[in-house]
């Protein structure tokens, strides 16, 4: 029994220590935000990486998510003659929940992994030490641009995902389920409130920060050559994905919980 409790205690202490290290890492990187030099070009490059190059994968997942949602909610709601709510359910689900979460999970897999691999390779080949010896702070040069780009770009990406997701629902609603196009659009607009979209965009910004932080943190502390870099890539994606789902609940509770 004592061994079991000790094991739980060890895991919990390890969790607290890891949380502390990640918060310190983020704090040290963010502390460089307001003092020169500023690497604006690096921020723009990361914004293109996170946003523009993720558009195809995010767009594809968003359209199919909207389509499936329309189909599923129609088959469910038809059991108690509430088919008219399909458009509203699709738009609320996509803007509040599925747009930001699906986009963030896709970006975590695509960009978070790439960040961890790139920074991790720089770590194990002494490139990060080389930055320091060339009077360049690695946190300012490598980490901060990624954190800023994540926070700025994810909401933009989620706006696109929201529009495409709702459009996917519209396609299925109108061309497969025979909704009147005007009635579907009215259903989409009628019950949508500003806070539905705003909460989704706030989530997106936080998710962007989480993805960039996990990718950078695990890459920065990579050890042991190619195997270590591979491991840090896995940790970056898994930890970002889990954190996205946990934080999603917390933000939803903060916005809409009673």
């Amino acid at each position, binding site marked *: 029994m004592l061994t079991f409790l000790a094991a739980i205690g060890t895991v919990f202490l390890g969790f607290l220590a890891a949380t502390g290290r990640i918060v310190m890492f983020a704090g040290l990187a963010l502390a460089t935000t307001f003092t020169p030099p500023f690497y604006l070009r690096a921020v723009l490059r990361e914004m293109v990486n996170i946003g523009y190059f993720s558009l195809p994968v995010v767009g594809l997942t968003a359209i199919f998510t909207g389509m499936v949602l329309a189909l599923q909610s129609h088959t469910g709601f038809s059991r108690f003659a509430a088919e008219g709510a399909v458009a509203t359910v699709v738009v609320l689900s996509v803007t509040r929940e599925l747009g930001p979460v699906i986009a963030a999970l896709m970006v975590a897999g695509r960009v978070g992994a790439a960040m961890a691999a790139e920074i991790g390779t720089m770590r194990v080949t*002494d490139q990060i*030490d080389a930055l*320091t*010896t060339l009077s*360049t702070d690695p946190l300012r040069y490598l980490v901060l641009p990624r954190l800023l780009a994540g926070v700025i770009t994810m909401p933009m990406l989620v706006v696109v995902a929201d529009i495409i997701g709702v459009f996917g629902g519209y396609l299925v609603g109108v061309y497969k389920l025979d909704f009147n196009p005007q009635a579907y659009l009215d259903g989409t607009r009628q019950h949508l409130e500003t806070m539905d979209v705003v909460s989704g965009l706030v989530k997106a910004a936080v998710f962007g920060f989480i993805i960039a932080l996990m990718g950078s943190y695990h890459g920065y502390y990579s050890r042991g050559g190619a195997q270590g870099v591979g491991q840090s890539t896995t940790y970056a994606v898994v930890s970002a994905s889990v954190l996205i789902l946990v934080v999603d609940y917390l933000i939803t509770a903060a916005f809409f919980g009673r």
Partner: protein
Amino acid sequence: MTNADPVLKISVRGLRKSFGRKRVLDGLEIDCDSGKSLVIIGGSGTGKSVLVKCILGLLHPEAGSIRIDGIETVGLRRAARERLTQKFGMLFQGGALFDSLRVWENVAFGLIQGRGMERAAAKDIALAKLAAVGLGAEAGELRPAELSGGMQKRVALARAIAAEPEIIFFDEPTTGLDPIMADVINDLIVKCVREVGTTAVSITHDMISARKIADRIAMLHEGRIVWHGPTEEIDRSADPFVDQFINGRAEGPIQMQIRAA
């Protein structure tokens, strides 16, 4: 050190550094005069790179003192450390060139990012440094991955000397190079020290290189300096560790881990 001595460029006292239970540096003490070339020799895993990383501030020692120009550097705050780093140049064993940048951008990196120099002016200096290590302007436009190992090493050397630092650290400068290219690199290091007055600290296993570039040689074993002296005295050091190492004998007081296992 007496009061009549000039201030030492580098002075290390009682330096200790461990990784887990393994103590790598154990009260290490060493000095280096300004404008001189110090070469540190020793077997693999004896802590040579750890010593250099402690001096550079890349690793934090558990105890001891590291003075640069007489000023204590252990425990320096971030801003002061960044100012101090401008005195340093470093040639890493594997080159540590930035894959995403072109060769000239690698060489000019410290000038542009570290010192805020204009790109055009920094490029001129980078191309001059590349020429000094025997590489043309066309090589400057390539990516590091497009160069051979020897060329990458030369680019790394050009990057280390680009900002004309006061102290340059060379980690295995000739490893992986053919004998002719190794001699070219040795000549460049000697030129830096003799003509520019740079202080050089090198780590090497290559005794030909050590004899050519060193004013003084120090032998590191089990975290301590077991012998140090002028280069010309190394052959009559009468130290069993030095004798075994410079003659490359398997038998002697230094036991390789594979033999102890």
